[in-house]
């Protein structure tokens, strides 16, 4: 492998080490046994074939889908931090469609659920896109605010129009059997994993081999340069990136409904939209890398549950590790830039 492709892997491993190190120190400082805690985390994620497929990979699927969505927008320099909201928009619509496709052929039912979910994600991000293009409102703020609106929408849906027929719990009725994804025998892992791998491969091709991918990158590196060069419609590229990003996050919500829960309820997502930012950054926005980092973060989140069960450590503690990983990646990028600048100066003593 060339030096260029080895360095990001080393950086990612170092960042992962930093995250686990901070978690271990935090566990020790709050009176837990760090060896026991981390051991429980490892067992929860990789302890058995069932844990790996049904806990780790099941959590990895939404993280990869949302991570791909985040990466698509970030590549164009557009910071979509509203994947959580788009995920919920997708989940709401997927549930509604899923309930109404009883009796359809399965492939058609699943296609309808996924398609509707992706469209819902696009619609959910359409307002921030409009605000950005038309009024110059920072997409960071608008997409973030809409996360809270989406959570309120779920709360309304499951106590109002989508509430179960029995009207007891704040949740929807389960979707029709036709709209449910096939499972890997003996596990809870569903067919959505194939979709994520296919989409990752497709995005890798689009990013690296097409004019569209080149334009995204050019706009992301410097919208000013891309504009001045005159060949790239910057606003349209950014708007397109954000809309597709919303489609992927919405699809993530649809896949979660059709593959995992079959019903809609509040707190369906344990913060997938935010973790997905870490997933995308750790992979440096590389689609195939996101498959790896998505599985890694799926393992951390699955392990967190194991840690809570076995060692009594609150599962939320792993968010500290995730934050540390993001910060470590940022710092590593700064160091890399500085050393690159030094190399250039050393080679060109002008």
């Amino acid at each position, binding site marked *: 492998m060339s030096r260029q492709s080895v360095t990001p892997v080393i950086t990612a491993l170092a960042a992962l080490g930093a995250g686990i190190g901070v978690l271990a120190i*935090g566990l020790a400082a*709050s*009176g837990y046994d760090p060896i026991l805690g981390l051991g429980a985390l490892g067992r929860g994620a990789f302890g058995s074939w069932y844990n790996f497929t049904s806990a780790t990979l099941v959590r990895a699927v939404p993280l990869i889908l949302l991570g791909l969505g985040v990466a698509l927008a970030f590549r164009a320099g557009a*910071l979509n*931090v509203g994947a959580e909201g788009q995920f919920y928009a997708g989940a709401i619509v997927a549930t509604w469609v899923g309930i109404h496709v009883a009796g359809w052929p399965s492939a058609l039912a699943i296609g309808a659920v996924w398609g509707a979910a992706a469209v819902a994600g696009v619609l959910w991000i359409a*307002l921030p896109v409009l*605000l950005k293009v*038309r*009024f*110059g*409102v*920072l997409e*960071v*703020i*608008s997409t*973030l*605010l*809409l*996360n*809270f*609106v989406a959570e*309120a*929408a779920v*709360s*309304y849906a499951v*106590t*109002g129009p989508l509430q179960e027929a029995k009207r007891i719990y704040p949740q929807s009725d389960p979707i029709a059997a036709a709209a449910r994804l096939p499972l890997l025998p003996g596990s809870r892992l569903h067919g959505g994993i194939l979709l994520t791998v296919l989409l990752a491969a497709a995005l890798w091709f689009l990013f690296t081999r097409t004019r569209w991918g080149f334009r995204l990158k050019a706009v992301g590196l410097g919208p000013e340069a891309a504009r001045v060069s005159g060949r790239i419609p910057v606003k349209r590229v950014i708007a397109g990136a954000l809309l597709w990003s919303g489609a992927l996050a919405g699809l993530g919500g649809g896949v979660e409904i059709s593959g995992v829960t079959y019903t809609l309820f509040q707190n369906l997502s344990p*913060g997938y939209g*935010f973790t997905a*930012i*870490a997933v995308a*950054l750790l992979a440096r926005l590389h689609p195939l890398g996101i498959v790896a980092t998505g599985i890694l973060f799926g393992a951390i989140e699955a392990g967190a549950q194991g840690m809570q069960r076995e060692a009594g*450590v*609150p599962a*939320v*503690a*792993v*968010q*500290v*590790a*995730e*934050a*540390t990983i*993001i*910060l470590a990646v*940022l*710092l590593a*990028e*700064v160091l890399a830039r500085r050393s690159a600048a030094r190399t250039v100066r050393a080679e060109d003593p002008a």
Partner: protein
Amino acid sequence: MTGEVVALTGFVAAAIRISTPLLLAATGEMLNERAGVINLGVEGAMLAGALASAMGAAAGGPWAGALLAVAAGVLVAGVFAAVAIGARADQIISGTAITLGSVGLTGAIYRTAFGPGGPGLSLPTFSAVPIPGLFEVPVLGPSLFNQPALTYLAWLLVPMAWWFLFRSWWGLALRATGESKDAARASGVPVRRVQVLATLTGGALSGLAGATLVLAQVGTFAEKMTAGRGFIAIAIVVLGRWHPAGILLAALLFGAANALQFAFQAMRLSVPYQLFLVLPYGLTLLALAGAVGKAKAPAGLGK
């Protein structure tokens, strides 16, 4: 007093109470944005301040809680400053990470300290301090001049921030830093130090905002209790056009939108309550669309 006056007084009092933490956090965020630093870790600093104030108040009363909250806010902003200003990493992403980490850390500390179920704490809180004389004014008296001490402090900060920004040398240095770091540096401003100090001050005010939430409103701590108020504070900075008085108005508008919820509930209208939950966010988005075109952010923001 007639029913309408009582209702109006209650509404104004609620609007002011709800706007206070937003005013504190937004004033802090304005200071660092004026210095060119956008800190999305406000939410995290608020949350850390909320937890610290609960722990401090449980141990040594509300003022101890407020002090500990300021310290916690400064600490969280310090981590952000080290990464985003010290190492010049991307501000938006580091801020997001700081908030993510704070959610995890406060949740873990809370559950470890108070047990997994998270029973409601009963904390000593700030009681309302009526201002003699002014308290007698109808409507405004019992709403505006019968507030906890932290509310008065938040309102006092508005003219203080204005004087600091527009009448003091350090305020000039801070604004210069936010417009162009290079130009400020060339005229002898210690750019890094200004940015770090502004960010730490922002953190202190965010921590205090968290304390207000716990010690002057809710009276207990709950995980993720800030519920996006830190991000709303950032929107309020934009809405208030980076000006202390504008921010006061924007924060009040927000408080009023939220207080409508209680007013409408009292009227027993058959509208789903979630509509009132989203009203402030929707209003902010609308207002941003209207405000941004005319307002001008500091030229060096986020760079």
